[in-house]
């Protein structure tokens, strides 16, 4: 179940951010209850949480992108990547794929949620935060999400009234995102 969808522009600034604000979702995660305490006792809302999560996921995206561009070092070497490995290593297949396709795979993984990334060749990044549920999503489901997102973005770009790079404010795009977040 996707809980947050974010589009990030070339310059790594967010141009679209949409999150299902559910307080309990992240209450377990380390980040959350740490950064929860904002000032004057006001607890930062989950939306802010997603902002933080996605932004820190950017680092990895950039790294993956780098890997994609320069297939140097041992990173191409599959022997490095034992398939059976915990959450800490769950992202490796994604990194391998990065050299080949836009889908970047899982960026960070938790018990509570996974963050998946996707980057177009125009350096537009899509990030989807998936809430871990009893029925885990298959990789393909996530791919399809991204594909939907991408095509929606293409349509958006074709809208003569959308200024490329500006923050997205489009009903159609919203609709697509909603469909994605509602799990189709």
């Amino acid at each position, binding site marked *: 179940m996707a809980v947050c969808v974010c589009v990030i522009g070339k310059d790594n*600034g967010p141009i679209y951010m949409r999150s299902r604000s559910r307080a309990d979702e992240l209450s377990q995660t380390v980040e959350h209850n*740490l950064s929860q305490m*904002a*000032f004057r006792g006001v607890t930062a809302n989950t939306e*802010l949480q997603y902002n933080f999560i996605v*932004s820190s996921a950017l*680092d990895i995206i950039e790294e993956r992108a780098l890997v994609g561009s320069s297939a140097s070092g041992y990173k191409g070497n599959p022997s*490095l990547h034992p398939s059976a490995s915990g959450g*800490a290593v769950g992202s*490796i297949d994604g990194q391998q794929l990065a050299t080949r396709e836009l889908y970047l795979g899982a960026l960070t993984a938790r018990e509570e949620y996974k963050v998946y990334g996707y980057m177009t060749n125009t350096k537009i990044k899509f990030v989807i935060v998936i809430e871990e549920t009893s029925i885990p999503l298959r990789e393909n489901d996530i791919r399809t999400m991204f594909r939907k997102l991408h095509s929606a973005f293409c349509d958006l770009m074709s809208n003569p009234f959308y200024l490329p790079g500006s923050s997205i404010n489009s009903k159609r795009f919203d609709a697509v995102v909603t469909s994605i977040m509602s799990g189709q």
Partner: protein
Amino acid sequence: MRSAVSVILSGTAPEQNMSYPDYSQTPLDHQSLLVVVRHIGRQLRTKQFNRAFERISRINQLKVFDSQNQARHIWIRYLRGYPQENNDWGDFQTHRKALGLITVGQCNSQDEFNELCRIHESLKVGYAFTLYDSRCILFGLNQDGTLYEESHSSDISPCVDPADDGFHKKNESNSGSPRDSAVSSTAMPDSLQSCSNSGGSSAPSSIGGIINIPKKSTSSDSLQNYLETPNEDTFDSVSEDSSSRSESVSATIQYARMEQEAGLAGGQVNADRQSVDKQSTEPKSLVAPTNFKARTLFYPTMEHSQTLETDIEEFIASLFWILESKRMDKLGLRKADRHLLLNSLCAPFEKKDFVGLDLESKNNKRRADGRLKKQLGDLSLQAGLLSEAISHYHSAADILKSVNDWLWLAGALEGMCSASVACLYPQLRRSPTLQRNSSLQGSELTKYKVAAIGTTNSLPPGLDPEQIGGYKPMIKNCLTPAEILEKYREAVTHYGKYRQAGIIETEASIKAALVLIEQRQTLHAADFLQNAVFISLQLTEDEKMQRFNALSELYTKVGFHRKAAFFKRVAAMRCVSPHNPHPNWALCHSLLLQLLEGYKLSLNPNEISTYNFYGWPRLQMQVMQELVGTAKRKGNNALATRHMTFLVHAMLPHMSRDERREFAQQLEALSKDAEGLPVPLAIDNGLIVPPVHLQHTPSVKVFKLVPPTPHLKPEKVEDKKLEEASPFVYTPFSAHRDRGAKDVTKAEFSWVEGELCEVNVILENPLPIELKVSSMCLITEGVKFHVNSNVISIPAESNMFPATLTGKPLEPGTLRILGYSTYTLGVKSNIRLKNMKNMLFPHIDVEIVPALPSLDVSTSKPKSEFFSSFSDSVVTSASISLLMGETQECTVTLTNTGKVPIEHLEMKMDSRLDKQILDIFKWSEDNIMSQLPIQPGASASFTVYIYGVGDFIGQPDNSNTVDNSSVSSLPVSNAPSVDGPSSLPSRLGAISDRLRPKRTESSASNRSSVKSGGGSSVLSFPVRSPKVSMASNVKNYEAVLNLKYSGGPGFKTGHFRRCGVAFNVEVSPTLYITKWDTLPGESPAQFYLVLDLWNATDHEMEVQYAKNKQILVEKAESCRIPVPVDRCPMTNVEKGKEEQACCEHIVTNVDLKWVLPECSGKATMQGIRLTPPMVQLVTVSPIHWEITINGESVKPEEIRFDAGEMISVNVWLRNHLKEALEDLSLSLDCFQDYQNGRCNYKLDSRFAVIGNDSVLIPEICPGSSFQHALSMIFFVPGLYKVDFKCNRKSSEDCVWKFNPPLDIQIN
């Protein structure tokens, strides 16, 4: 996954955990010996201690040659403090054992000395089980103070220490745990013994540095050490104790058997050790307490401690040898005995699991074997034997895997990695300084500004893993970089299975991360860090904070700046978390400051402009808010204000309406406590926060200098020619244009010193609240400029709010306008033009001209509602309405409203319709000039005379020129007909009498027809309606009186000002002269000018046309008046100009004065035209008649004669012109006038003329005269008239008559 497994494998609540991970650890620390350096006593200042620590930790490597004379590289890691709990893990990973203790103190007296010794001992207690050796460095004890010190520095062997170590341990254990007193007591003697001889034997090693001998000694002493190890570990059961002792004994024997001479050597040294002891007991030197057996190193001061390094090296060496010996022992251990060691080979939390464990079980034996191998690995790694270590690890790993001893397997794997890393990436070893930074002591941390690690590829190429692997002597079965990653991962996974091993795991992850960073495998590094994040440890808030900070640092190393920033923030939050008993806002703030870069923030507003379009506004705003909050909480209000200002300034574009409002209000609130000033702020940690200027609230869209109003615009009397003369050949326009291109910073106009100058700005308020700018004024440089600040309040979200910034230049010169300053929301900001986007030039220069007077003009006449626009400098106006011919006065008052006197004044009347103006307006220049200079405040006045011009001649409707019709239609225009009785009325009557019959007469003598026309026209006058023509004849004249004035300093520099008064004159008609004619006057010297006057006003008008001659003319009536005028002497008038001359004569001599109830005026005959005959009449005739009858000159009355009587007549013609009159003809006519308008000229039968009645006169010279004589006889009585006339042959028209004709009565 980890969570699940860990729950299963880890037993009950972990009782023995390490307190907190050591984040500064690197894989290479596995290689190094751990030495704790402590600061003891109050006497030594921390600075001194730090210097000492510096010096000590500089010795972090030592090269020793072992028995095989191979070089061993020993690494040492110095720590200032080391938690015992961690120490307890020393068996699991030997590099965690604190092997050495160095205390540094200062003492000046005996009891201080005792005190220090006591502290030293107590410290030793902490690491009792692991400590090999210790030193107590004391400053302030002068070597020469006691011979004890000399001796000690030279020949005291280090190996005493292990002994008293051992000994002391007993004591400690006595005090510590009474239970094992028995054990210790039994253990004591041999331990003493062994140590004594060992001490002796090993003495040379430390002094002479002979390497091969000490092997035995060390071995023996290590044996002694070794003997104890079981004791330490086996307090619980005496049985075990005994077993271990027996085993130890056997070991002793074995060693004893090995060499004897060692014993002798030992003996000797033993001897002098006794002596040493004696010496030390001598009273005069400071005496160490009896229980104090540690080696003390005395140095007078830090400066006089050259031997410090060598002493330390010697200390290290001793540590090494002990270590080495331990290694050898373990190596030499019989397989059978190994399992006995199992108890000593376990992690703290395993101990109780092993209670009553069957040591003999095959599994446990293998396990023990594996663990021993693992420990051997550790030891040999520390002892500088990489390859051995690796091979040990390998075998250990194999064994442990087989027995599912995950924890130790992990240990082995990690060790394997560390070893490989040690040979692959030796450069990983940190420099001591960096090490110190990463430790987190308050403000120290803040100066750890996040190093610009940049992207992961930013490592120097030299550090590329392969290359390093390349030049390193490849040690066999050393792991490849790839394997290292793998093994680490495995290790971490295994660690993960034990909750108690959390800290080990954390450290392992961090080490792995470091290696991977080295390998530039940032993603994997990140994975490990990620993993480290999730290891749940129960830590205090402070420790958690440190943990996240460390993670953040590591992420920075990885190049994940956002993650780094994220954790920095988390750490910061930790500092002030509600759970935190004593929140540390300052620390929180400084941490937040460090994460700014991670979020692409910079406190410098100039940089932000480059940043703000990438980065994450939402987060940036969050962080800024938190900065504000912390700054506030830590009590630095100014800083809080500064941060808030920055937030409002930089983040404005990203804010929603509500946020804008909220933040603006917050800022306002904050600035109440500390207003924002445009000065850099220095934070306590030395960071400088640059000033922030609120440039967008309000933002200036237009910034325009206002030129002075036209009538105040200073002008320079520079001569254009000079400009043209300049070699450059561009017109002012082109010049202007390319000036515009280059820089428009020079204003086109100039301002005047001491007068108010204005700049118009248009402001935009982006906030949804009303923005109050409590002060807004210009920033200038150059000449002194007094700015007046003004208060503006801009309504919410208005984007076109005009305002005016004013000021007064106080001296002439060039004023440079740099920008403006505002004070709003409690923040003072200076905004420079060069920082404004829509400003194309960095500053504007204006020339300030010296002070000039300013003139205020007023007139005595009412202002006219409209005045001509052809001069823009007009300040006031006067409207005058007068009647034709009237003259009015208008007083113009000049007041000097300036500060300097008016010294110079020029006046000029300008008008579109030129020449007439000159006769309308008249004033006297010198009257004004006499009043100069006009002092400030004073005023001068002068009078302008306005005369109502207009042509009186002609019809009202087309009065502009004289119409010929009027001329031609004059009734008596023809000379010949003008005759009759000399008295005017009768004569007029006579004319009319004579006209009447003629009118019927059809014989077309042109004059008669002319007459009738004339008559009719005269009569027709009243008929025409004046009203129609009235309105059309009101005339307007516009003129501007231009004043050019100057004075004061401005006058000297040739500046001046101009202003103008607009006159609006409206002239309405009074009377018109519709017709005119000339009649002969009573005397030849005079003639009558007959005028038809028409009163165009609607009042009765009295016209005075000659002296005491006046007539009343009803309104809109006309009347005819004869004006007697002297004839015009035609002297010196050249031919053809006669008429003009006559006109002028008339204009000058005739003046009609009209008088209306309220006003009066004069009418001029300007523009009158005359026909030739009139000219005749006007001019004096050239011929003078003189006639005598019978000798007597005629008089103008009847002359009586009888019929038939002869009458002789003499006629003289005199010419009094300049030139001669030629071929004239003189003739006489005789006729009878029947008084009925008929004259009978047929008198042939009634009289006769003797002599000829007409003669031709060839010429009459000027002055001379011509005489003609004749006689005549009348036959019939009656009344006759005789008419003499003389005319030119050439021109019939001009005829001179004798006038009046003779009247002759014949009886």
